[in-house]
């Protein structure tokens, strides 16, 4: 029964997902024009290239295609702007330029008058299976196309996905950057206002949600009617491990979100929390107080629940695991000297844990950045509330990203290491925000109910 409800929810969740039928989820297919590969557009005098991203051209006259063309231009602009690799000609001045109706009619001289270095032109055409999108990036000076690709096969119900793919392709080919426009964020939310059963206390159900990286298309993925918290994406982006109190005792479950199936990693009477996937997706590091005495230690377990071994062995609290990108080390927090601090230990558990944070009164929830950065973001107690800080693992320099605007915690890196998702109370209730690793570009992703414990998908 639960599974059939889950299946329904998942099906609804994936309805707008290009090729989201049974596994694996296929993105729209693309065709690269072979003659137009990878010539980067350069800006003037070392400045970032200035791009213009007008609305796409609707090649079919129906209202749906026209609407999609408009959405694609806007979403692509937002996606590209997110990484700050390009400068942009503001969209509100585009109105002065005649709209092209095909690739052949682009008024390059007019765009050059606006000092555009590059111009993205896209077309949208209605086809049997949905829409076909063609995108070209022109060098405005030479009037040559330096990028051209065709996208098709995605559901028309989710045109945003096309823009996200284009953005990632442009970042990769033009800036050698792995964009995150196709990634997603998962989090726990009480927005449905459901109350826990089997208790006389007034307690809100929390379920696991996912959303696009920009906060769009927020979708519930668990239907457990209980406390479901601390979701973590599997490295392949197809599963979410989380801590569920569905059977009274907290256990690690995995939801395979494209198959609508659920696996139990742990079961029984021992409590288990805070799963962290190994980079190869075969193992999870979890925290458990199973030995008693109020001690919590870390364990590594295979994804199917077999092969459990103790990683830390200290008569204190050892929790909040995160793997290094190479999979050879695990950072965690321990209160062995008083309040929690961040430590690192080999993933084989051999050797002494090495203390990382030395200037905090309280530091928890380390999250290890992906390459090319080698940083650990964490939650630090900075006053009545908490803030997000980042420590460089080579220099041990600490920088602070939030400064007491509400309480801020639970940082999670984007897969390119350039952004961090976290929970903040600055807007009232707990909400998910993203911020650049520089501390700029704060963006609120959620607004309904309380939303917390974010994790950013690798894909």
């Amino acid at each position, binding site marked *: 029964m639960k599974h059939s409800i889950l299946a329904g929810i998942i099906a609804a969740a994936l309805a707008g997902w290009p090729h989201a039928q049974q596994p694996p989820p296929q993105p729209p297919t693309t065709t690269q024009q072979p003659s137009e590969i990878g010539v980067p557009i350069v800006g003037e005098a070392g400045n970032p290239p200035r791009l213009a991203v007008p609305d796409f051209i609707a090649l079919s006259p129906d209202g749906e295609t026209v609407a999609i063309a408009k959405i694609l231009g806007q979403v692509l602009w937002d996606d590209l702007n997110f990484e700050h690799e390009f400068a942009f000609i503001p969209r509100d001045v585009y109105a002065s330029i005649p709209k092209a109706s095909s690739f052949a009619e682009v008024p390059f001289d007019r765009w050059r008058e606006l000092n555009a270095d590059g111009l993205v032109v896209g077309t949208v055409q209605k086809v049997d299976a949905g829409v076909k999108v063609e995108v070209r990036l022109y060098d405005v000076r030479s009037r040559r196309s330096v990028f051209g690709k065709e996208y098709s096969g995605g559901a028309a119900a989710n045109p945003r996905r096309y823009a996200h793919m284009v953005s990632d392709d442009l970042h990769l080919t033009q800036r050698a950057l792995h964009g995150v426009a196709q990634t997603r964020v998962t989090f726990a939310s009480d927005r449905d206002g459901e109350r826990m059963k089997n208790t006389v206390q007034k307690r809100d159900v929390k379920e696991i949600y996912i959303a696009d990286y920009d906060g769009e298309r927020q979708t519930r993925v668990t239907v457990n009617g209980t406390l479901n918290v601390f979701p973590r994406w599997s490295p392949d982006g197809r599963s979410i491990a989380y801590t569920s109190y569905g059977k009274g005792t907290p256990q690690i479950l995995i939801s395979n979100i494209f198959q609508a199936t659920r696996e139990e990693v742990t079961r029984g009477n021992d409590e288990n929390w805070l799963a962290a996937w190994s980079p190869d997706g075969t193992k999870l590091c979890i925290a458990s107080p199973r030995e008693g005495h109020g001690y919590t230690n870390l364990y590594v377990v295979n994804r199917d629940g077999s092969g459990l071994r103790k990683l830390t062995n200290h008569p204190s609290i050892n929790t909040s695991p995160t793997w290094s990108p190479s999979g050879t080390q695990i950072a965690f927090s321990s209160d062995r000297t008083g309040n*929690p601090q961040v430590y690192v230990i080999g993933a084989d558990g051999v050797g002494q844990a090495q203390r990382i944070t030395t200037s905090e009164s309280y530091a928890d929830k380390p999250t290890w950045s992906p390459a090319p950065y080698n940083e650990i973001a964490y939650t630090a107690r900075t006053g009545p509330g908490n803030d997000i800080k980042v420590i460089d693992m080579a220099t041990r320099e600490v920088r602070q990203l939030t400064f007491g605007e509400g309480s801020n915690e639970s940082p999670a890196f984007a897969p390119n290491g350039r952004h961090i998702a976290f929970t903040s109370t600055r807007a009232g209730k707990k909400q998910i925000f993203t911020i650049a690793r520089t501390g700029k570009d704060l963006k609120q992703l959620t607004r309904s109910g309380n939303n917390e414990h974010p994790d950013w998908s690798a894909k």
Partner: protein
Amino acid sequence: MVRRIAVILTAASLAAAAACHKNKPPVARPMPPPATNTAPTQPPAPPDPVREPTTVPAEPVRDDAIASASLDDLNRNSPLKPVFYELDRSDVSPAGQKVLDENATVLKRYPAWAITIEGHCDERGTAEYNLALGERRAVAARAYLVAQGISADRLRIVSYGKEFPFDAGHDESAFAKNRRAHFVITAK
């Protein structure tokens, strides 16, 4: 000790008062002294029956009311009181020990009860660390009860970290209520 005797006296006099109005009087027994009491003095004999109606104190609840209540009703107005903790701490304060002494007394009177001790935290700690801290609070409460002679088999533990605050406020008075071990009766 003085307070304990007072409780016993009250219970005994209540029982005696009840005896005047019922066919089957409940039996009032002196409670066993706490395990830590090295030289127990003999509890005083129950006083003579009181014929005048007395004001019924809120606690302890009369045996028959507790015995007949549903688990939900019991938990809604629980005879087991929560224990509160200091910020970042899990040691049981003297005030907490007093509460646990009284909870132990109730648990001894109802040996069939099984309970879950929930560990909770305020919002100042992190969500992640608070799971382990809540656990340690629940463990501390259980250890104290076990030392009072309550079988560990009756005492299940679960930590909710800061996921279920008792008071949704964001000031110290709310925080103080949220740093707690909460007792749920799960079987009777």
